[in-house]
């Protein structure tokens, strides 16, 4: 068989895994791979970001909207360490990624060679798996393993470090897709007894509540969730990452859980007699004080990752399985039922929340622009059909509250890690992953400055994302906490910002600025309808708070409306 170089074997392996888009940034130790890539540009598109962190967040955005494994390239040393934040983000939010890093030649390993870093050691706690290739013969096997591990079971990031000599040396290429590793069992065998136990509890419950997380989206169980909820009449609440798993307009949908979630689902968590958690992990931003969480409820936890079961909340019945498989097994054992009175209790809470908060935020009479008002208008203008990529902080919480998702896989955000700077690069990746859908990045004035260089990537590849800055010249969420819990001591949260419109001009991106409420509708329409990338700088009220709020460490019952 004709031999090829290790770097070409890598590219051919990626093609075998149906990879058609790579986000990356070249450098010394990965140059042979980039050289081989140059011969395969008819099969693989490469997006040159302006920072490795941009590349990995873009790969995350791409993966989250497409369901495919995101792939990124970086060189050794600083290139590799710049990936770490994104890898940690993908690990905690279960995003399948394969990151390829170049490494110094194997004979220089451990010598503090130029641009050497121990990326295997550094990434070990934040990857699902990692491996260093020092021999070209390993490339095909390891890459097939990497893809299998990244996407199966609870997905996660895999990092493969390849020394430069392995990239250069010759190898005969023979690719076989991995579908089994004896020490790795990503899809636990479902236990029928657990299904029956769970069904019995569900059939006897009076006030059950389904809590959905990203597991529904990852296992593509949206339809099964609907069948479950519609057959049993059980209301559904969603975590931050579960948003868009069920339409916000569905009659059984009762809202968004957590610290800045809706009033009803938070409050009713402690009135429910049964919590059915599916593909969610009881994050502390959802539970608040765990000793005062679900106090009247039995807990059924459907979860693919065994280490999540009983980690935070003790279960009565744990179903360790893929969400879709578990729901499909469960449905035949469930009685047809309805819970109208129980759902009406949520609607009563919705009314309270509307009167106390929402009405005041979206129907403002004065001439001031509130974040909630902006997002509500965008939600209406797009009919909740866009992919919304949010950053971290108030912009994220307001969007999660006010954007009424009507299509699945539409909410891309950094949930577990809370990575500021995530949205801009993730949005460009999302647009490439779903080019036919509208992608809107919603970012604060703080977060955008963490990865603002990616405007250049958006401009170079003419990626038609819409970028909305909610600009209050503050690190708004930290400022809100300072106001509420630190005596208004605004320690380092106010910012003198650059002129974002001149910056957008500099990058050749169409832009506009809204300061006047009367211009808001017109500007938002132009922003949404424009066929191309567009940055809209919306100057919002300087000191706006996001409510409701469950103060950190308190019970969900103590949700504050003001």
């Amino acid at each position, binding site marked *: 068989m004709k031999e090829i170089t290790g770097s070409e074997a890598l590219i051919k392996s990626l093609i075998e895994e149906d990879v058609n888009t790579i986000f990356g940034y070249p450098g010394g130790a990965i140059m042979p791979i980039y050289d081989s890539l140059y011969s395969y540009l008819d099969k693989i598109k490469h997006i040159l970001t302006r920072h490795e962190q941009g590349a990995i967040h873009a790969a995350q955005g791409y993966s989250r909207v497409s369901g495919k494994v995101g792939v990124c390239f970086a060189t050794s040393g600083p290139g590799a360490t710049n990936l770490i934040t994104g890898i940690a983000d993908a690990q905690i939010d279960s995003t399948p990624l394969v990151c390829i890093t170049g490494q110094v030649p194997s004979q220089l390993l451990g010598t503090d060679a130029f641009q050497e870093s121990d990326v295997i050691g550094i990434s070990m706690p934040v990857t699902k798996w990692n491996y260093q290739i020092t021999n070209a013969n390993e490339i095909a096997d390891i890459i097939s393993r990497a893809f299998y591990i990244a996407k199966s079971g609870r997905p996660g990031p895999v990092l493969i470090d390849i020394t430069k000599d392995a990239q250069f040396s010759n190898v005969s290429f023979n690719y076989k897709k991995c579908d089994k590793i004896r020490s790795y069992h990503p899809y*636990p065998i479902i236990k029928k007894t657990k299904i029956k136990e769970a069904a019995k509890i569900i059939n006897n419950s009076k006030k059950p509540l389904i809590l959905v997380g990203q597991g529904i989206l990852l296992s593509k169980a949206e339809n099964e969730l609907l069948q479950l909820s519609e057959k049993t009449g059980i209301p559904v609440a969603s975590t931050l990452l579960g948003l868009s798993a069920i339409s916000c307009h569905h009659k059984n949908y009762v809202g968004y859980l957590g610290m800045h979630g809706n009033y009803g689902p938070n409050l009713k968590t402690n009135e429910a007699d049964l919590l059915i958690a599916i593909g969610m992990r009881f994050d502390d931003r959802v539970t608040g004080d765990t000793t005062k969480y679900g106090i009247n409820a039995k807990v059924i936890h459907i979860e693919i990752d065994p*280490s999540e079961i*009983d980690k935070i909340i003790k279960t009565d019945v744990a179903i360790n399985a893929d969400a879709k498989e578990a729901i499909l097994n469960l449905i035949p054992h469930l009685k047809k039922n309805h819970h109208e009175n129980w759902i009406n209790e949520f609607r009563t809470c919705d009314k309270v929340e509307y009167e106390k908060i929402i009405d005041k935020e979206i129907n403002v009479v004065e001439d001031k622009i509130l974040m909630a008002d902006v997002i509500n208008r965008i939600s209406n203008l797009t009919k909740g059909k866009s992919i919304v990529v949010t950053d971290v902080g108030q912009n994220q919480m307001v969007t999660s509250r006010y954007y009424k998702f009507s299509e699945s896989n539409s909410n891309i955000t950094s949930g577990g890690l809370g990575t500021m700077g995530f949205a801009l690069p993730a949005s460009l990746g999302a647009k490439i992953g779903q080019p036919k859908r509208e992608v809107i990045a919603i970012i604060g004035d703080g977060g955008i400055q963490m990865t603002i260089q990616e405007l250049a990537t958006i401009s170079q590849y003419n990626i038609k994302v819409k970028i909305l800055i909610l600009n209050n010249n503050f690190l708004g969420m930290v400022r809100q906490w300072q106001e509420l819990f630190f005596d208004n001591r605004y320690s380092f949260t106010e910012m003198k910002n650059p002129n974002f419109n001149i910056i957008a001009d500099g990058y050749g991106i169409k832009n506009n600025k809204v300061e006047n409420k009367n211009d808001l509708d017109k500007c938002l329409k132009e922003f949404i309808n424009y066929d191309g990338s567009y940055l809209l700088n919306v100057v919002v009220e300087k000191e706006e708070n996001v409510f409701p709020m469950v103060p950190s460490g308190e019970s969900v019952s103590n949700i504050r409306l003001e």
Partner: protein
Amino acid sequence: MKKKGLYQIKDPDKKVKEYTLSVLTEDKAGLLNSITIILNRRKINIDSLNVSTTEVKGVSRFTIVVSSTKEKIIKVVNHINKLIDVLGAFLYEEDEIYYQEIALYKLSTKIFLKGDLVEKIIIRKYGAKILKIEKDHTIIQKTGTKAGTQKLYDELKKFGEILEFARSGRVALSKKKRKTINFLRTLEKTKSNKLNI
């Protein structure tokens, strides 16, 4: 014997106790680091650690002794089980395993000239043995529990200075009837590599 069994907490026991983790893994570089990272994250100190090959080629056994609450250590075991190259992690309390440690004691040879120390204490009472006698030093070896090897240490100290002392990590086997190769065969047969829908 169930692959990567899910340990569930029945009644959370907040008492700190000694636990032995027995982890069967593929023989791969870097695994020790992956495992200790998980213990470190929860600030669990390792009392003793032993890594060795097993009767099955390519399979290693980590035996780790830690002090922890049951609740915390169960979560740790579930995390270790998640590591890709871990075949199975098992958690044991003291009465569920056979275990031994080995200790070596280096003493000055002239101590042995003071009467019947060797016979009475070392051989009979403690079941220890003399590994090597040199002109200026003698090596004694004893296997047993940590308490047992410590007792001999204290006893020997009465006769003179102990020049050097080293104790190995614990090695342990479960009291259950089990065969590693059968465990591996079960793993290989399990159809949990693909989604079954």
